[in-house]
């Protein structure tokens, strides 16, 4: 055996232990779940001002009755609202109270598809969605537009623009 090969063999014997060390380090458990694991639809309020001056309350219309999911917010420019896991459409009851004591109510219907989302077995089950349509009654709201149909962990997406009717 040549001298060079002897040196090679010497450190070759340490290689399996190095391999084991690397493998044991790699075996350390890591949680693969994203820090933001909330899936919400982002509603962007559009009117003549930067934000909505009226007090806004949003309720989920459920078969068992309405459930308030956002209560009495003022100067709201956008809202992230939870969407249902597997319903084909979600109904939102939007109530506006202006400074003169008037109340306006609209019902927003959000149609969507539902896709189970798998990140890892460590992560809580979740669902992503794609918006397929949106309609509204028109008491305080003038119109609604789907800006970005994809609802997922990305909270920066502007999903729906809600244009409010200007009032004198």
């Amino acid at each position, binding site marked *: 055996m040549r001298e060079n*090969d002897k040196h090679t063999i010497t450190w*070759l014997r340490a290689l399996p232990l190095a391999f084991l060390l690397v493998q044991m380090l790699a075996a350390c458990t890591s949680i693969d779940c994203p820090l933001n694991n909330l899936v919400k639809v982002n509603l962007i309020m559009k009117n003549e001002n930067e934000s909505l001056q009226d007090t806004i309350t949003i309720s989920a219309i459920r078969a068992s009755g309405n459930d308030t999911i956002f209560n009495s917010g003022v100067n709201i420019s956008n809202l992230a609202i939870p969407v249902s*896991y597997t319903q084909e459409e979600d109904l939102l009851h939007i109530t506006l109270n202006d400074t003169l004591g008037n109340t306006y109510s609209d019902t927003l219907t959000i149609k969507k598809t539902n896709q189970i989302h798998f990140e890892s077995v460590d992560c809580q089950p979740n669902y992503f969605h794609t918006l397929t349509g949106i309609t509204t009654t028109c008491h305080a709201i003038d119109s609604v537009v789907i800006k970005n149909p994809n609802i997922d962990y990305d909270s920066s997406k502007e999903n729906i623009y809600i244009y409010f009717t200007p009032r004198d």
Partner: protein
Amino acid sequence: MTPAKKTYIFILLLAISLLPACAQKKMVKTESVKADSSAFISNVAISVDLAGAVQRWVSSYGQYEAALRVNIKGRYFPIIELGIGQADNEDDVTNVRYKTSAPFGRIGIDFNLLKNKHDDYRLYVGARYGYTSFKYDIEAPPVTDPVWGGTATYQANDVKCYYHWMEAAAGIDVKIARPVRLGWSIRYRKRIAHDHNPVGTPWYVPGFGRGDSSHIAGTFNLIFEL
């Protein structure tokens, strides 16, 4: 103790038990100064990966893998590796279960770096190309919707994916007693192309293992050189 830890302790004990045996092996006493007169194809070797099999045995994932390797003049070793990767894991907190079982294949070549290529020892570096096409199942107990009420099923069956990847390999093997050899290899795996279903990222990919786009893995090979 987790199943993964059991695997590595088992492999560690195996390694320690083998090291003295390797150390006792006599090196080739003389080296040839004559021109290389060995045959173009010196021999063919069949091997199995014991590490992957033990991993599958004691943990929720692993692979059964065998390889066919050709020895070209003691220097070049083209190799084909075929196997079946399996995973069946349910998290005890989330109760989410991931299950797959599919074949995979790799093809590549190793180079013996030792100057004395007819030594009982061999030191390899090499590369592999790997591919698998597989389906996986996900299931969990029905999920309660905290805002909108009711429960939702969380299940997906036969989710199709494929993976292409490259591996950089380094390893050694040593003749124990003809025709038996034992060896190790360390692999750096890098995904080069894939198709994920919209459902999400596969938890385990047959032949590639766990990890997103790259990771380090290894094999412990029992080799029969014919």
